[in-house]
């Protein structure tokens, strides 16, 4: 092999130039190559989340999404799910920032009357093993834990407040803060959903 290159100015710049050039090409190329799959993966994730929380549908809710601003930075997203053009439910991407560690993003599916069909946690930073249990806690099917479940309950009729604070839902053991936050997210989603429901009904009926 050839001997080591001297550290002359030209050499230095040249070598670095070539390396960055090649790596630039490689990176740009890979970016282009993976752009599609990444976008697809993101979409799939969102769709999966929607699918999980609303009854079966055959439209593309992403196309019919409408957004509602809550404050300066955060918006709720509403994904209407329709079966043969009939609204069967709406997936609401809602959030709260009252979590133990800040924001919690929840996808919650409301049936047209506002009853909760299902929910899924999109993102959170709650403590693993404590707050993180909310992904499963509020959809327990065990009749003994009925009071913990939010499924098939309507925030308009049931008090979506943890029972410790006088509400109707039992909080996650040792994670009351996360539970309160979760309730807050659902409630926000519900409130906005009801507020905008009429509007939507008009536009889509």
């Amino acid at each position: 092999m050839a001997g080591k290159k001297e550290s002359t100015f030209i050499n230095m710049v040249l070598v670095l130039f070539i390396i960055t050039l090649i790596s630039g090409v490689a990176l740009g190329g890979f970016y282009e190559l993976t752009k599609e799959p990444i976008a697809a993966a993101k979409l799939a994730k969102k769709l999966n989340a929607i699918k999980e929380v609303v009854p079966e549908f055959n439209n593309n809710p992403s196309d019919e999404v409408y957004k509602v601003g809550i404050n300066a930075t955060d918006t709720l997203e509403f994904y209407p799910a329709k079966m043969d053009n009939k609204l069967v439910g709406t997936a609401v991407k809602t959030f709260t920032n009252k979590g133990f560690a800040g924001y919690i993003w929840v996808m919650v599916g409301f049936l047209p009357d506002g009853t909760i069909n299902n929910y899924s946690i999109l993102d959170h930073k709650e403590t693993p093993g404590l707050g993180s249990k909310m992904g499963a806690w509020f959809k327990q099917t065990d009749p003994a834990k009925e009071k913990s479940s939010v499924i098939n309950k309507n925030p308009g009729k049931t008090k979506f407040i943890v029972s410790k604070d006088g509400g109707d839902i039992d909080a996650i053991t040792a994670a009351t803060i996360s539970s309160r936050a979760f309730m807050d997210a659902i409630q926000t989603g519900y409130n906005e959903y009801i507020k905008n429901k009429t509007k939507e009904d008009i536009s889509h009926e």
Partner: protein
Amino acid sequence: MNNLQTFTKGLIKENPIFVLLLGMCPTLGVTSSAINGLGMGLATCFVLIMSNMVISMVSNQIPDKVKIPSFIVIIATFVTVISFLMEAYTPALHAQLGVFIPLIVVNCIVLGRAEAFASKNKVIPSILDGAGMGLGFSIALTLLGSVRELLGSGKVFGITLFNDTYGMLIFVLAPGAFIALGYLIAIINRIKKA
């Protein structure tokens, strides 16, 4: 040193984590479960092999003064590539590992092997070295991940071994990472002595 030794030394004798103590951040940061550990390990492994390969090919052409920047660029390229790939094909894992994926760039093992081995050796040994080190890293991460997951929530690779009421939450959290690794290394030291 023959090729076999080049490959196997990273597994135990010079295991990057248990012996050399390099790349501690991902080691501790992502090992709250076995699968995360494995994922991180393999991602690092990929970067190690590729960068070792490329660096061993080009290192003679690189002047000393820009050696480090050049290596970093090469490594960073592969890191970004693996990041793209993971985002596209294993989005959940990508989200779990979070900031630790870009941080593979600064993982001391990668740069360390580039400097200490790849830049002085031919392509094949460099690849083997990278693979060995990467595998050693992966094994260590998976082991630590398994231990933490087991103690913390009674599972390994998501398979429940005992009821999670018996799980010690602390092992999933930061302190448990340090403590578990500390005792793992102590046990390994002890076994090696015996």
